[in-house]
């Protein structure tokens, strides 16, 4: 393999995995913007998404598209339940109780998954059985291409939905000023519920995309979730572009660090980048120094 091909290979897989981090980070960012709450269960929601796909695809033997869509529906309902029982009862409290509740929920999800599925890693088949193809010495795994396409499609959807639909604008208004949104007749509680549902689906899709790459375990969400937070912080917490750029940056540094510095520290490189950002630019790439709310 030529040096260039190795670089190309790592850039390709780094961006693809980064896309998954970006999806999780987007979910965290949207909830943060609309509720000022950091959802620490986002990683474990991803794990549940992967298990949902595992049940529907591997255990029930449904075809991929149906299993995928059904898993999205199930996880959407789960997102509603999550906000109803974890966020809603604490919505008028300060951010700390809510954050602790999300951490607790995450631990609960991990343990329930352990009870139900045991500790044996489960395998999920990739979307396309044929594997991939090679161009110029770089192997393009089809699952990674699926990840790239789905991530790109979701970010385009995100843009079109939030900037060009009335519902999207109402959700933005809710995120920007809840009292004013109420006075404009916007059902704020419903908008927040939508945000949780959508963010849960984003996390779950991330889990379904990586399920064939990593094995599905009850602990898979911890690392994914932490890297998504790192992505949020690097990109600028609560910023949509920041989630995308931050996610890809984390994916790239992880792949390149593992390839060129030391593979055993693969999971450490994202946090190295995080530390650098916290020291040099704590507000992230797109964040403002003082978060301004006019």
């Amino acid at each position, binding site marked *: 393999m030529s040096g260039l091909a190795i670089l190309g290979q790592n850039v390709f897989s780094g961006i693809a995995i980064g896309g998954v981090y970006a999806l999780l980070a987007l979910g965290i960012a949207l909830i943060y913007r609309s509720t000022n709450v950091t959802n620490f269960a986002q990683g474990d929601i991803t794990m549940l998404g992967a298990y949902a796909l595992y049940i529907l695809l591997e255990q029930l033997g449904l075809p991929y598209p149906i299993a995928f869509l059904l898993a999205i529906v199930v996880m959407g309902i789960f997102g509603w339940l999550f906000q109803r029982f974890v966020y809603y009862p604490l919505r008028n409290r300060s951010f700390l109780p809510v954050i602790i509740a999300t951490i607790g929920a995450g631990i609960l999800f991990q343990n329930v998954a352990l009870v139900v599925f045991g500790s044996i890693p489960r395998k999920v088949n990739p979307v396309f059985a044929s594997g991939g193809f090679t161009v110029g010495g770089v192997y393009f795994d089809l699952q990674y291409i699926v990840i790239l396409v789905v991530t790109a499609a979701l970010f385009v959807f995100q843009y079109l939905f939030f900037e060009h639909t*009335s519902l999207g*604008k*109402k959700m*933005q*208004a809710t*995120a*920007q*000023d809840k*009292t*004013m*949104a*109420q*006075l*404009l*007749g*916007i*059902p*704020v509680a419903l908008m927040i519920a939508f945000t949780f549902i959508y963010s849960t689906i984003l996390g779950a899709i991330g889990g379904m995309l990586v399920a064939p790459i990593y094995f599905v375990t009850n602990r898979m969400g911890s690392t994914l979730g932490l890297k998504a937070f790192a992505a949020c912080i690097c990109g600028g917490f609560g910023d949509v572009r920041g989630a995308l750029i931050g996610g890809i940056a984390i994916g790239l540094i992880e792949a390149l660090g593992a390839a060129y510095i030391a593979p055993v520290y693969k999971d450490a490189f994202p946090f190295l980048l995080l530390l650098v950002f916290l020291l040099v630019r704590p507000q992230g790439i797109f964040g403002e120094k003082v978060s*301004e*709310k*006019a």
Partner: protein
Amino acid sequence: MMLEMKGVSASYDAVQAIRDVSLEVNEGEIVCLIGANGAGKSTTLKVISGLLRPNAGEVIFEGKQIQKTKPEEIVRLGISHVPEGRRVLPGLTVRENLELGASVRKGLSKADLNKEIEHQYELFPDLGRLRNALGWTLSGGQQQMLGIARGLMARPKMLMMDEPSLGLAPIIVKQVLETTKRISKEFGTTVLLVEQNASMALSISNRGYVMETGRITMSGTSKELLSNPQVNEAYLGGRSRKLKG
């Protein structure tokens, strides 16, 4: 009668903000509520628009009790509250802010929406010029105008404005004042105006209420209040008395 408050008291946790407030607003009137800082003027509006539940009393709008109705439903009944401060949605454009103002109106066609937005641009030319600017980039006066225009987009039966003159240059205060009168005439909108700037409020309103430490202490036609020595002393700086004397 359009709106009636009967013996309303409301508090923020332990702080009793208004006590036994009763007032009336008739259709087509401009009524003002004046008083010093912390008198309870904004709280009164918050109770009417449903942002704050009173702990006693009744709020009646067009014959229906609304003191337990949610704010999102109260707008739909026809009460538009332009709150204190500059509650322009900072990350949305001027146009988007206006569109959201009309979002309570079911069955409003796209064409009519555009026509009404254009009409707001005529009323407030600055907004037309800045239609694609984000809310946070507007000046204080422009944000104030956007707040009022957005409130009007709901086509309310009653418009409640909380200190529209706050922080504005005198010339803009005059502009806001004239626009308020024009709105009331043109749309037949009833206006409940909260102001610390008493002379301005009384000069454009039909009737007024004076609030002090959570209670209504005086009321009458604006003419009466303007010539009332107590009001004069406390809220108009005693100026007109000196002039007369």
